[in-house]
């Protein structure tokens, strides 16, 4: 049993940002960062484009907030958005002070670039490796503090909650394979999204939504899970992200006739419309047969050739490197084959704007949480900075919370139950969990993609039920406890099935089209009935849904046009 004051699960941007805050404010509080991978192997390193913040006079907080709210299709909680945009610049500057190599203007100030859905050049960036540099800066900053300890390659399995208070958590130490218990006065979940529900996705392999699913099983509701963001430009066939900055720097999208088709769909913003708009437009081009046909199916062209080698090398070096390494195509000379790809989970663990979940002492921040500043569609470059802002808030809230908590005791029953569940109950059948995962991915890619309809969703739910049934017979074909990847993948698939169920049922129930959720059978936004957040609660029979009104302060919903 490991004793700590605050346990942070997840060592991505949000988790590490929370740890920095705690260490900075109080060097006596012991912090344990528990993560499935080493900190700098987290998925946050894959963020490319940048982080939005109001830094200059020509911009304003209200404008950033309005862009965000409009981008969210008015599903964002506006009080949270207003709080969020005010905190962004400070976070950018703090990272700067800690050594982040932001790209610079010739006069030495931090440079900003254009991004989809933002009215001005607001996106701070470090070439096209923004997330990578942010993560490394935070990780390196954390090495300064003595009261932060990393528990890398520990896989979270369960949360210990009693009387609606957090007591700690259990995790598998991968190196030895043993189940380890952490006693903590407060727990911050920062476990990231659930992108690997899909097959064609920009996500890292380990992003299976474990944190969300565990919180959900422990009775914490999930919010707005039906909203999945599709990024317009994923490299075909691997799904590797071609950052939105490609278009921010002036890249074009073209169909097979060479037309910049975005002029039909968003004549004002063109390629720089929000992601849901562009992704839908692209999918429409594909469906209506105006896409290129390749051996891996239809694709469209992301044309950067007119930007010139110098600009690409300076602003988009990683894109170029990836395209050359993975496809043998140099974007300086040839357009890149892209199509929309699953990219972000707008929904997540239900929290208020102070990152508190309904369970006392349990906080959530980053992509796994849904404070709801993204609503139905996130604007590019708002997510990395969300992790920073709400990571910090979570850290501060946890610190404040533990002041009044004396000592916690983990219920011994919990320990025994968990041992039994992990090592005795799971994986006694003969069903290959990877097959289940593949079929789940196929279902999600087919029925919960950009365009959805009632029949497809019903079919998806039926399939997920079937997979759940089969999952109870899953096998773990490995008897050695050390680094048991078979156990790990089996557990992950279990979590993913729960999440997929919530996503599919939430999508079926929401009979409207808003942001990233587009129903062919209900193509209109319906503010009368659906200006609400979906909350999914775990029950043995499947999710139970409740709805929560959206907080609206300054901006009344209007028609969304770009």
């Amino acid at each position, binding site marked *: 049993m490991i004793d700590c004051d605050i346990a942070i699960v997840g060592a991505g941007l949000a988790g590490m940002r929370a740890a920095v805050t705690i260490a900075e404010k109080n060097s006596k509080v012991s912090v344990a960062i528990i993560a499935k991978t080493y900190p700098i192997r987290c998925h946050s390193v894959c963020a490319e484009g940048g982080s939005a913040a109001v830094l200059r006079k020509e911009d304003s907080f209200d404008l950033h907030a309005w862009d965000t709210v409009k981008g969210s299709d008015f599903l964002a909680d506006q009080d949270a958005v207003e709080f969020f945009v005010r905190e962004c610049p400070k976070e950018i500057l703090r990272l700067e002070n800690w050594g982040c190599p932001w790209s610079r203007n010739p006069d030495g100030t931090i440079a900003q670039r254009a991004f989809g859905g933002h009215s001005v050049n607001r996106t701070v960036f470090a070439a096209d490796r923004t997330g990578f540099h942010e993560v490394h800066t935070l990780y390196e900053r954390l090495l300064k503090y003595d009261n932060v300890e990393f528990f890398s390659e520990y896989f979270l399995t369960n949360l210990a909650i009693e009387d609606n208070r957090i007591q700690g958590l259990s995790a598998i130490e991968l190196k030895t394979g043993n189940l380890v218990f952490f006693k903590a006065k407060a727990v911050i979940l920062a476990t990231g999204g659930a992108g690997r529900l899909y097959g064609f996705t920009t996500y890292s392999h380990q992003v299976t939504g474990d944190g969300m699913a565990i919180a959900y099983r422990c009775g914490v509701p999930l919010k707005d899970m039906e909203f999945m963001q599709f990024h317009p430009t994923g490299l075909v066939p691997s799904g590797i992200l071609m950052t939105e900055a490609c278009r921010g720097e002036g890249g074009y999208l073209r169909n097979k006739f060479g037309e910049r088709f975005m002029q039909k769909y968003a004549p004002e913003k063109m390629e720089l419309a929000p992601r849901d708009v562009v992704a839908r437009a692209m999918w429409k081009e594909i469906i209506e047969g105006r896409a290129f046909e390749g051996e891996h199916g239809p694709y469209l062209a992301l044309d950067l050739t007119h930007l010139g080698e110098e600009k690409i090398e300076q602003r988009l070096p990683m894109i170029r490197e990836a395209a050359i390494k993975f496809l043998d195509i140099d974007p300086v000379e040839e357009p890149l084959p892209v199509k929309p790809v699953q990219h972000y989970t707008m929904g997540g663990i239900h929290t208020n704007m102070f990152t508190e979940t309904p369970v006392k002492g349990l906080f959530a921040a980053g992509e796994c949480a849904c404070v709801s500043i993204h609503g139905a569609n996130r604007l590019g470059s708002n997510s990395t900075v969300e992790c920073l802002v709400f990571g910090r808030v979570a850290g501060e809230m946890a610190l404040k919370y533990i002041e009044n908590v004396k000592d916690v005791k983990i219920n011994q029953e919990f320990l025994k139950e968990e041992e039994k569940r992990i090592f005795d109950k799971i994986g006694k059948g003969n069903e290959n969990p990877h097959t289940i995962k593949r079929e789940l991915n196929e279902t999600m890619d087919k029925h919960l993609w950009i365009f959805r309809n009632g029949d497809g969703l019903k079919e998806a739910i039926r399939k997920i039920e079937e997979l759940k049934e089969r999952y109870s017979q899953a096998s773990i074909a490995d008897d050695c406890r050390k680094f048991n*990847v078979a156990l790990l993948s089996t557990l992950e698939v279990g979590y993913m099935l729960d999440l997929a169920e919530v996503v599919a049922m939430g999508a079926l129930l929401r009979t409207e089209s808003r942001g990233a959720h587009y129903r062919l059978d209900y193509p209109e936004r319906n503010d009368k009935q659906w200006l609400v957040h979906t909350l999914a609660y775990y029950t043995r029979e499947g999710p139970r849904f409740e709805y929560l009104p959206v907080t609206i302060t300054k901006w009344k919903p209007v028609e969304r046009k770009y």
Partner: protein
Amino acid sequence: MKFVIRRFKDDKSFWQSFEVPVKKGMTLLDGLFYIRENIDPSLAFRASCRMGICGSCAVKVNGRPRLACETQLSKFKKEIKIEPLDNFRVIRDLVTEFEGFFAKHKKVKPYLIANTDYENPIEQLQTPEELKKYYIFTLCIKCGSCLSVCPSSATLESSLGPAALVSAYRFNADSRDRGKEERLKIVSESFGVWRCHSAMECSEVCPKQIEPAKAIQLLRRETLR
């Protein structure tokens, strides 16, 4: 294509072959996943981003460390030999112990040492030229390839190794940093820069082409002052 993998299980080590169907554009990592998903679910290897930025999947391929995710299978003929990285203790199969590697990185104080105010941060200026002086060295993904081929690290585990020294130089060359002296004190100890004898293997295998050997020499030059 035949994958010959060096496996470690229960303190035993053995070679095992797998037949993997290869399609155009398939990477080594895809191949490893194919084995895990279809043939042997217990095959342990690390993987995360699959786009060469997280540094998880460095393995030794036909004698040379590579990122599995960036390695195109079309480069190889019939057989491909995969082993865990050298100079690291193996935990299982292709998974090696990285705690020591990260501890070395921590030793060199790899963070900006400067007088800054946490509550009220102010923008520090840095021109693109100043940025360019150290930027290439910020690209280290800590995959461990360099350490695995460093001959000094092979015979002396406690030497800092290329990656940690690159980090030290990256911060020393940052115009915002004020911690040069502290860091130089650490790296000029005899297990630091003096254990480099310019075998240049690190620069050869670095998947991000950041020339660790160069960083070490530049750092070494600073200790003369």
